[in-house]
């Protein structure tokens, strides 16, 4: 686990150091985040950000060169494109940005070069879309990985802390609620949590993904997950430098697998911290007893 943590740290440092993304600006005016990077999207990691806010102009976040575009119902395609109409730009430093689900016909005439801030099209609901939004992704050609745009875009004001709704221990094929005073069996298990961030701009429940998860047992860090990059390993999209496959991060029904534990008989204490992109953190401390 220590090795995995080290790998995550190195990868994050590497990405932060090499990506020449200073000056990166938001692609839209209204920054309503409705879907976050590396969320579980029907069985695979989500590779970008979904931004709502109604129809609005979509701009180039950096100066770049057009490498690919597709306009729904206009351009030929050998495969069905759930991204709808989209524009992919190549930027200096081997970075690619892709702006997707754009309004049909809003892409304008084909041009090869775009200055930072120039309009690429308008957000729309082409492709596999439930409503007008922009799907935006950031790709590092050097490391062949999708990186979390929120790591590099200017911060958005967010004062709301993420939520840890419940914590469970998965052991021996059963899920045991882990609350203060709980008595659980000794042995190896997995800490699972219902944890998410929340949209601040709406009153209804709209869960978003987390940026970081840290698990400590009896004062010792046993797991850390950072939702910063995705890359393919053995034909599977994996998370971060530790290359965690989807099944190691999510249970498939909305719960997060926070890390493995080896519980010994006696009293134990668990600290689970979750963090969102604005740096807001929520920690849940649980004292429990491990039976023989």
């Amino acid at each position, binding site marked *: 686990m220590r090795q995995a943590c080290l790998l995550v740290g190195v990868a994050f440092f590497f990405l932060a150091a090499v990506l020449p993304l200073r000056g990166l600006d938001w692609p839209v005016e209204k920054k309503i985040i409705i879907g976050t990077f590396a969320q579980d*999207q*029907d*069985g*695979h990691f*989500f*590779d*970008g950000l979904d931004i709502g806010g109604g129809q609005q102009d979509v701009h180039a976040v950096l100066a770049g*060169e*057009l*490498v*690919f*575009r*597709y306009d729904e119902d206009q*351009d*030929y*395609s*050998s*495969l*069905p*494109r*759930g*991204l709808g109409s989209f524009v*992919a730009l*190549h930027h200096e430093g081997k970075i*690619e940005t*892709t702006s*997707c689900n754009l309004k049909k016909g809003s892409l304008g005439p*084909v041009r*090869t070069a775009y200055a930072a801030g120039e309009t690429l099209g308008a957000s729309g609901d082409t*492709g*596999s*879309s*439930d409503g007008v939004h922009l*799907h935006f*992704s950031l*790709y590092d*050609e050097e490391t*062949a*990985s*999708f990186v979390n745009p929120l790591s590099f875009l200017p911060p958005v004001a967010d004062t709301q802390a993420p939520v840890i709704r419940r914590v469970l221990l998965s052991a021996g094929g059963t899920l045991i609620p882990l609350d203060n005073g709980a008595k659980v069996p000794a042995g190896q298990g997995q800490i699972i949590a219902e944890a998410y961030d929340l949209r601040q701009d709406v009153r209804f429940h709209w869960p978003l993904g987390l940026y970081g998860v840290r698990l400590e047992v009896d004062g010792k860090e046993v797991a850390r997950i950072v939702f910063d990059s995705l*890359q*393919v390993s053995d*034909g*599977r*999209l994996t998370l971060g430098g530790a290359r965690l496959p989807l099944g190691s991060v999510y249970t498939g029904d909305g719960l997060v697998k926070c890390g493995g534990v080896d519980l010994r008989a006696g009293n134990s204490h668990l600290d689970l911290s979750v963090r969102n992109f604005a740096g807001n953190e929520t920690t849940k401390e649980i004292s429990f007893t491990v039976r023989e």
Partner: protein
Amino acid sequence: MKKRRPASIFFTSVLLIVLYFALFPYPLGKELVAKPVWAVSVVPAPSNSPAGGEPAPTAGPQGAFPFRLGDVFGYVEPDGTLLHVGHRLFQVALSRSGYINYARTGTDWIMRDPRGERVVSFSGDGYPLLSADGSRVLVVNSDLTGLAEVDRNGDPAWTRDFPAIMTSISIQRNFLLIGLLNGSLQLLNRSGALLYQGPPGPSRIPVIYGCAVTRDGSFIASVSGIGPQALTVLGQSGASYTVALRAGLSTDFRREVRMGFSPDSRYLFYEAGDAVGLVEPQGGRLSAVPLRGLFAGSAFLQDARIAAFAARDGQRVNISLVFPFLRTLGSESFPVGDMFLGSVDGQLLLGVGGRLLRVDVEAL
């Protein structure tokens, strides 16, 4: 005294001339005869059937050929009997043995045979895609970074993620070639295992704009790159693929290009600006068929002896019929909106003006 030439010299000369013409006849060029066989209207009848307005089936699916003309799709038999006509919902995945008519959003799909009968139902994230013969059912995930295949029961057979967005795909019964935005090609076998991966060639910005694989997997091809853009054909060499042909292109595409191999794998065609490029991978021959407009469709007729290419120029569609590497047999222009170009029983199936036409092409 004057010596007389023997008569045998004269007869030998005549014989040689006759033999020359017999052995090396001058190609006079074949006359094209395009014979319209039937024409049918393809307006779907209103219906409450589940797949979007298809009439009741009237015959079996054997020998039916798929077509799509604008929002209308269906199957027609060689004698012009319409087996099925429907309106697409959002898109329709079409194949010889069945179709999936699907909505913009949703994760549950039904594959139906050409009569509209349910074949299999399955679920997934993204959109479905069928191979031309319908033997393979794939699901392309919604952010274009993953692919899954479902088996005949609708259960997942395999899934695979890709290190970048998919830009193009070519499906054969036993092979699957995927082009990626990062400039890499990935060739998968029937069970989704990687057979080959790599960039087809160097370029300033590597991107795959189109890809194609032959039915037997002996050749794979791509149009790729910016500065320069190039056509690359790779041939199977043992367990790997090596460059069989590489040609710089004068095009500067920033979108997917149409390309593919003829059903017999003899010819490769690719969109090349105001022309269709033709390649014979085995012999290394290249040629170009000029087009009047933007390349809009292709069909191979009579065991690929004749190729048909369509080009759109505003509201006009131009169809060219060619003997690959020999000559253009003829071309015709139609003032139409939606257009379909396909084949029925090895002959031309043309969809124009809300009608389907079978045109039998003979070169006399």
